């Protein structure tokens, strides 16, 4: 009696009265599903756009980042587990910040964009949607940093108010998703294609974990899929794993593994493949795929030099570099 089915993400949680979904924050109260963290963020910060990471979207601009408790995945290596693997009732810090206040605060702090990030913003969907709609009205951009574990219908609606997304592709293997993240691969791939179809600027992150998802044959399959389904110009960020949360038994990803994966992805046809979480590596920079000119030289999140023309071209060969540059 009084059960509801949440249809936001591929889990399709059936939630009894008084209970919460797998995400811990969508709660059945009196037979109605409530988004209990709507307007109740637990993390606010101003980050550089490069931290999302988004390298081809408004470079070197500050982005107001917001997150609530909860997540619909349970990654054993989560780097924000204090936030994502708890319900709102467990959070020490919850502040009231409804969408108009959030947008005003972002503007007051001089940010051109708002990022819904840290935990997975899928679980605070309504807060994202209302805030993003208001942000657009006031000339701000919206960035969705997600694991893309969301159903098609709500995602298509959300895409109307999104400008860019960095989506995590945790591995190109369903078994890995089930074992390490408590999710599944197919809906993630579908969501990425949907964002592409809806015109959201998309960059993909793949965290390489030693021995678990660093197989080069899998990397090749993933890169080929990206070329075919998302386009060769879609940036791919290989990110270095650090032992965290429930996965402290594995070492950080060796530099050579990241470099080999990058070469594999470039050979598969992707044009912009980066290495992240490895401060000072040359693969943090954007390189012209046609003539090899270094277009944006980065050190960590800092841009040392930007040679792109105003309309996003290589100054030497005039190759257009995909992205949203202004």
């Amino acid at each position, binding site marked *: 009696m009084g059960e*509801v*089915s*949440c249809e*936001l993400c591929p889990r399709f949680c059936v939630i009894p009265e008084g209970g919460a979904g797998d995400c811990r924050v*969508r709660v059945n109260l009196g037979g109605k*599903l*409530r*988004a209990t963290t709507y307007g109740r963020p637990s993390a606010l910060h101003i980050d550089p756009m490069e931290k999302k990471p988004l390298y081809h979207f408004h470079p070197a601009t500050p982005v107001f980042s917001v997150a609530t408790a909860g997540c619909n995945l349970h990654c054993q290596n989560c780097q924000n587990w204090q936030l994502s693997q708890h319900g*709102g*009732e467990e959070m020490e810090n919850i502040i009231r910040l409804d969408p108009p206040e959030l947008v005003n605060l972002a503007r007051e702090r001089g940010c051109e964009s708002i990022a819904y990030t840290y935990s997975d913003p899928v679980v605070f969907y309504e807060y994202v949607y209302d805030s993003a709609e208001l942000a657009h009205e006031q000339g701000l951009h919206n960035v969705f940093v997600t694991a893309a574990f969301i159903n098609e219908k709500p995602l298509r609606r959300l895409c109307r108010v999104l400008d860019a997304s960095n989506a995590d592709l945790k591995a190109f293997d369903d078994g890995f998703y089930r074992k390490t993240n408590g999710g599944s691969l197919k809906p993630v791939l579908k969501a990425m294609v949907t964002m592409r179809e809806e015109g959201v600027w998309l960059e993909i992150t793949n965290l390489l974990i030693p021995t678990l998802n660093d197989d080069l044959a899998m990397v090749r399959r993933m890169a080929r899929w990206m070329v075919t389904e998302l386009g060769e110009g879609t940036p791919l960020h290989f990110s270095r794993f650090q032992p965290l949360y429930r996965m402290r038994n594995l070492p950080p990803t060796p530099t050579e593994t990241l470099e080999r994966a990058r070469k594999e992805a470039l050979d598969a046809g992707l044009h912009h493949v980066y290495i992240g979480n490895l401060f000072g590596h040359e693969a943090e920079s954007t390189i012209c795929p046609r003539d090899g000119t270094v277009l944006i030289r980065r050190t960590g999140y800092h841009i040392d030099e930007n040679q792109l023309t105003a309309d996003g071209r290589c100054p030497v060969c005039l190759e257009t570099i995909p992205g949203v540059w202004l």
Partner: protein
Amino acid sequence: MKLPIQTITITRRRVLGMLVALGLPVPWSARADKWSYKEAAYYRKH
């Protein structure tokens, strides 16, 4: 004596879990200042 936060959290979750198991209402309203009651999108009543 001050209990560690983790102990309080686990105890609170167990109490809430017992209330759910017994079919009793969970006192979300006790934390009305912390919670939003915004109705979620994309769900279906049984």
